[in-house]
């Protein structure tokens, strides 16, 4: 397997280094990875939760991941049993992209029984870790890993968590990093719901329907994008598509993405604004709902 997906590394001086991860307090200097590193810089949502998940939790994780993929988002998780695995599987099943962040070397499969899942992730996504290849998982490596999971993402969603779940650490890191935290509410008579419900009481955003996260990010479903794009001209479509992929962008980012000069971008954005397709604020341009 390692011949097929060679181990590579990327350091902070590299433009391929994940965009959002660079902004956290203590970003890892070097990341080891296998697969497509560009995924780590795309708009992503972390879907995490307990290993000992209930059927409800597994169902929620898989469907949440599927919904996120439909909006063109990347699903990031930790490849542990339970919620993490379901999140990866849900994303893969929907034909989406997913990133697994490991608490061990990228050549080590932990847990070993997820061997097949890891292979699928390598095929369609990315596996990365800050630990040297060959590092075996230890107690302290997982909390460290959690800051990378939340650091890669614009938001972290906790699907199911007990009282002392590691997912709560991920949520805490996300909040410290200034990213949004979502939680899937659960029955209050179940131990596995306690962590999530407590997060909501502490101010996390509850996921009432699976589209909530994407709605908050002002994203549009990939199929709706296509429908709307049909009414637009060539340049308008290029800009609109880029905005739908990334959620929000500056004019400069649009220049890089589309190769058009800023004066043309500005002109087209005005027209798109008139058509009600995009909105602007504080120098950023958003695709409207």
């Amino acid at each position, binding site marked *: 397997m390692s011949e097929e997906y060679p181990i590579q590394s990327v350091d*902070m*001086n590299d*433009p391929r*280094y994940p*965009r*959002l991860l*660079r*902004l956290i307090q203590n970003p890892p200097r070097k990341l080891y990875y296998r697969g497509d590193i560009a995924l780590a810089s795309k708009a992503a949502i972390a879907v995490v939760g307990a290993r000992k998940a209930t059927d409800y939790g597994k169902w929620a994780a898989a469907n949440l991941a599927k919904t996120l993929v439909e909006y063109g988002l990347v699903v990031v998780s930790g490849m542990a049993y339970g919620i993490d695995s379901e999140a990866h599987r849900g994303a893969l099943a929907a034909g989406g992209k997913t990133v697994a962040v490991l608490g061990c070397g990228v050549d080590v499969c932990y847990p070993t029984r997820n061997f097949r899942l890891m292979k699928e992730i390598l095929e369609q996504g990315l596996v990365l870790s800050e630990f040297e290849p060959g590092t075996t998982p230890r107690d302290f490596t997982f909390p460290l890993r959690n800051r990378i999971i939340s650091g890669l993402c614009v938001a972290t969603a906790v699907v199911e968590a007990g009282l002392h779940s590691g997912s709560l650490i991920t949520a805490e890191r996300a909040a410290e*990093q*200034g*990213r949004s935290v979502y939680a899937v509410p659960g029955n209050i008579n179940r131990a596995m719901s306690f962590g999530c419900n407590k997060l909501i009481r502490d101010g996390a955003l509850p996921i009432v329907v699976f589209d909530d996260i994407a709605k908050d990010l002002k994203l549009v479903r990939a199929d709706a994008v296509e429908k709307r794009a049909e009414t637009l001209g060539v340049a308008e479509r290029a800009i609109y598509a880029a905005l739908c992929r990334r959620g929000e962008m*500056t*004019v*400069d*980012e649009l*220049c890089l993405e589309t190769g058009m*000069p*800023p*004066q*043309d*971008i*500005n*002109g*087209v*954005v*005005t*027209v798109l*604004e*008139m058509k009600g397709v995009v909105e*602007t*604020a*504080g*120098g*950023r341009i958003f695709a409207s709902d």
Partner: protein
Amino acid sequence: MAGTHIIKSAGLSGVSGFGVAVEVSITNGLPGFVIVGLPDNSVRESRERVRAAIKNIGLEFPMRRILVNLAPADTKKEGPIYDLPIAIGLLAASEQIDPVSEKAMFVGELSLDGELRPVTGMLPMALSARADGIDSLFVPKACALEASIAEGIKVYPAGHICDIIDHLRGERPIEPAPPYDLAACEPDRLDFSEVKGQPSVKRAIEVAVSGAHNILLTGVAGGGKSMMARRIPSVLPPMSMEEMIESTAIHSAAGLTNKSAPLLTRRPFRSPHHTVSTSGMAGGGKTPKPGEISLAHNGVLFLDEFPEFQRNVLESLRQPLEDGSITITRAAWTCTFPSSFMLVCAMNPCKCGWYGHPNGKCGCSEEAVKNYARRISGPILDRIDIFADVPSLAYGDLASAGKSESSAKIRERVTAARARQLDRQGTPNARMSGDRLAAHCVLSREGAELMRAAYDKFALSARAYGRILKVARTIADLAGSRGIETEHLAEAIRYRNSGMLET
């Protein structure tokens, strides 16, 4: 023998010169030396310098009653510039030298041993002398270069009063200063090629500079707002001779001329600190002195950390931004200074400077952010044509090795666009009058529809409407287009105040 003699000299009022006649009368009576004609202290002290200088060069200081009158007698005179004309007048009145031609003018400060020291405001005085029909001008050596900018007048540079006496006696004529040599101006040391990334802001600046539009750059700390603003002089269009002389005269009156290259050949760029006072900004003082807005005449006034300026200082910009000049009235005087400049402002979006940055460092509440923006009053925002957001730089932009476009290239396009405007209406687009606006900013049917939609959708004001048209005209000029096309208008609409700053 008693005698009276009149020597021509000059004075400075605001940024223009005026002729002064120095009348020296020597009569019999108790020895004394009196200067009348509203002299200030530094003029009154001339007596001692003149007395010492005449004695030290071995000539006779008349021990009789000396009266000096500075006409017109109702205008205040200040500065040590009358040392030389008083000394020459004294020597002529006491017949130690022959009477001096009416068409000669003298200015200069004397040292105690007769050396001539430079004076401020040489150029405006030389210009007024030329207008008054003076044909030869005797000035301290250090001012000669500046005086020679006034073409058509013979400038005699002198290092010592003896040089002038020898010249007047016909013993050792002074070589007149050669006409001012417009030496090739050296290029700016700062260049836009040093600014990485930020293509959209550079474009906004290019548009602003082309039409002399006022621009506000808003963005988080470290985006390069000041860095880009400081490079604006390197892309400004060249000055006409008339503009150079106008600006140089103002700088001269403020005593800011560079003695080795007195003529301003590049447009001035002034960036006063935000602690500047109202009179520092607008002009004023005991005697009228031009402020920063006048020193920026024909050039750029850059206000970094815009909301940090005192409110009354910013409000003082209102009339000059509209009229291109400022009239200052004090109890003792009223003075009008030219102040036609392009305003460039830079500000952070909030007090801590991080609002909107993806790192989420900003700790300001929404209310605090609004309050920060509200420090700038509506009328001032209403006079800004282009609002540009400066995004924070991604690491990749900084690390990229490629150089961006050089200032010389941008300046070429700016100069061409500005030339088109001057050909068409004689002013940059930003200063187009209302009737010109209607004549030169005609929209196509499609354009008019877009404008109408924008007017409704963004709830634009009438003033904003006019501003967008002017900016669209500039964009069309940059593109070399006769009419304003829809894409020009669409780009101009993007530069409006997008609502971060409420008016």
